[in-house]
């Protein structure tokens, strides 16, 4: 018995050590990196810096630019002596990270809410920002999150757009072929033409040297936001428009999903002309799709301007900067010839009102520095590639990356109907997850489209009721 016990105990110790060492590395990779960096910065400028009261803690939402934020924190500390800690939540885990971080003794002083729904759940923590410099410089005050009584609780800090990104080199190759269904991208201004072109391209994919027209429709759980959120925004935007729904009221508690056929149109097109067999989509990630695009294996992929960093960083990237452009997502709605990209924001800065006055002030100062000083603006425009909605940014101070330029270009076009981001009022993450799961089952052929559409309607109502 004793020997058994000894064996068990020693084995248990071995296992528990293994457990300890493995779990943080899997979840907090970026944050450990961050803390390493900031503690390094801490040492370099520790003499003569301010006391504990002025620390800024920024909980970053965007993992793709985590390293740039660390640099910004370092620069700011060198300039002002105020310590800025940046922690980045893992992709898709912002709410989880925020929930645990904000309950700590040193909570984030700056965090992000994702729209009106986010404000409702975090209103106990959001400070009123109406008197801050940053809000005063916001170009379009209507973009901010308010309580309807003059209080401002979330300031958008980046405007983003998404659509179908295409590789012009491949498109030109196609247009030059005999019997091409269109002769230039300008001719593709509705779903019918898009479908004709895409299906013809699929038929000629061997000659075009691609594996499929569209990159794989990533439907792995957690990687399916391009469909259940971004794509779903379009039919629902048209629905809200057609029924003149007040988006701030209770009328959004039910939907009819009356344009579900239009969602199906484009979704089927994605599935059937893809690089990947629809049955295998359940393990594809967004990064896979972007890599396929970057390697020239496909001509189109639905994503937003934030994807540029992902595309340009893929090793063996064959897409040239001047070949990358946006096409609006056409779904077959009437009058969509004038439709533009989907442009909006789901990133709103909020300041934690439960931290000390000094910390709140320090946070405001840090944000204002970032969006108004020359150094800060340089980071925003050239490193982060943000299209910042503040009047501190003059002419020519806009990002140089091709997709952000495209978004600006589409915003400025005459007579183009830009689609706002209405998905900020989608009822809950559970709704989106279930929608994504239903789409996967549809792609795999185990669920009919009628079931998907009706489950969207019923789940929307249920999730709105519990919220």
């Amino acid at each position: 018995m004793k020997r058994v016990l000894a064996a068990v105990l020693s084995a248990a110790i071995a296992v528990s050590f293994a457990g300890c060492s493995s779990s943080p590395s899997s979840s907090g990779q970026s944050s450990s990196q961050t803390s390493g960096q900031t503690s390094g910065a801490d040492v370099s400028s520790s003499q003569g810096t301010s006391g504990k009261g002025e620390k800024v803690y920024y909980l970053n939402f965007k993992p793709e630019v985590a390293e740039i934020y660390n640099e910004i924190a370092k620069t700011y500390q060198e300039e002002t002596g105020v310590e800025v800690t940046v922690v980045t939540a893992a992709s898709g885990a912002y709410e989880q990270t925020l929930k645990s971080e904000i309950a700590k003794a040193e909570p984030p002083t700056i965090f992000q809410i994702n729209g009106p729904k986010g404000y409702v759940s975090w209103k106990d923590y959001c400070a009123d920002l109406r008197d801050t410099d940053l809000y005063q410089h916001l170009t379009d005050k209507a973009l901010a999150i308010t309580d309807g009584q003059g209080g401002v609780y979330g300031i958008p800090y980046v405007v983003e757009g998404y659509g179908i990104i295409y590789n012009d080199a491949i498109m030109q190759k196609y247009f030059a072929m005999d019997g091409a269904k269109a002769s230039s991208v300008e001719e593709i201004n509705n779903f019918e033409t898009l479908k004709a072109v895409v299906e013809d391209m699929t038929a000629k994919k061997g000659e075009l040297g691609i594996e499929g027209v569209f990159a794989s429709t990533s439907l792995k759980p957690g990687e399916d936001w391009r469909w259940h959120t971004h794509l779903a925004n379009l039919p629902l935007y048209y629905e809200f428009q057609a029924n003149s729904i007040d988006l701030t009221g209770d009328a959004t508690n039910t939907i009819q999903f009356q344009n579900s056929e239009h969602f199906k149109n484009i979704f089927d097109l994605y599935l059937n002309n893809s690089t990947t067999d629809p049955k295998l989509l359940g393990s594809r990630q967004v990064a896979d799709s972007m890599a396929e695009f970057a390697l020239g294996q496909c001509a189109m992929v639905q994503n937003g301007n934030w994807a540029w960093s992902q595309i340009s960083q893929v090793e063996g990237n064959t897409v040239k900067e001047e070949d990358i452009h946006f096409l609006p997502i056409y779904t077959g709605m009437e009058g969509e010839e004038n439709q533009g990209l989907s442009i909006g924001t789901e990133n709103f800065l909020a300041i934690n009102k439960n931290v000390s006055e000094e910390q709140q002030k320090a946070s405001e100062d840090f944000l204002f520095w970032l969006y108004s000083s020359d150094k800060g603006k340089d980071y925003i425009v050239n490193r982060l590639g943000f299209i910042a909605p503040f009047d501190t940014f003059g002419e020519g101070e806009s990002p140089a990356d091709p997709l952000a330029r495209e978004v600006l270009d589409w915003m400025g076009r005459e007579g183009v109907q830009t689609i706002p981001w209405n998905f900020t009022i989608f009822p809950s993450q559970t709704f989106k997850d279930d929608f994504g799961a239903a789409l996967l089952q549809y792609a795999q052929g185990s669920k009919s489209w009628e079931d998907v559409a009706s489950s969207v309607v019923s789940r929307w109502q249920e999730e709105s009721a519990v919220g």
Partner: protein
Amino acid sequence: MDKTLKKYFPLFLLPALAAFLIAFFIPFLLGLYLSFTEFTTVSNAQWVGLRNYVRAFSSNRDFLNALWFTVRFTVVSVITVNVLAFALALALTRDIRGTNLFRTIFFMPNLIGGIVLGYIWQLIINGVLMNFGVDITFSAKYGFWGLVILMNWQMIGYMMIIYIAGIQNIPGELIEAAAIDGASPFQTLYHVTIPMVASSTTICTFLTLTNSFKLFDQNLALTAGAPGRESAMLALDIYNTFYGRMGYEGVGQAKAVIFFLMVAVIAFAQLFLTRSKEVER
């Protein structure tokens, strides 16, 4: 000597007691309290009584589905892990060359974290299923057997070590006596070896049972519940409930308390049952 020990024993107990209170008892009570409240973070809780417990079952069938999936998984993996681990232990207690090497190799999967294992096995299983034009998210069945394989791969080595210790602990005289009395190898196995390693069996079933029931990392990494939530086990369902919608943190907490009670009851029942079969020495 005894007197001084008695005098100072509270002092010596203090560090362990403090650690126990801080790391286990207080969080446990806090968690219990939170299951009766509605909260976003632990510091802004509001009492709502039993509503969370009602909602855990009434809002949808996720919890019950997850429970049924977990029970099936636990039954299958407890049996397979223990049978295979015992077989390996038997094989590796004979005089085979390289026994120690084999023991080490079989034990090694245990040293890899669950998330990593989940992703590795997802690649392997998808690689195989790819030949049939599907992947692991296609059906909950694939997820189920994928989890069973993963669990076996991870746990067998660990259980094998425990069984080996048990088998080596059997007095040589007993085996010899059995051989002299003309017992066949199978009779020796059934009437000597298995009863004599009953204490190992108790520990092994306990560990596999509770580990299977509480499985989370592997489940999250391998299937994340796909398709839909059909392959989500209890721990993953609790996690999804907690983070999936606003205002459901308390419901997730209530499910966690129910989960704790279930694990405790099952573990005690199992310990009681297998303990009674152990041979006293």
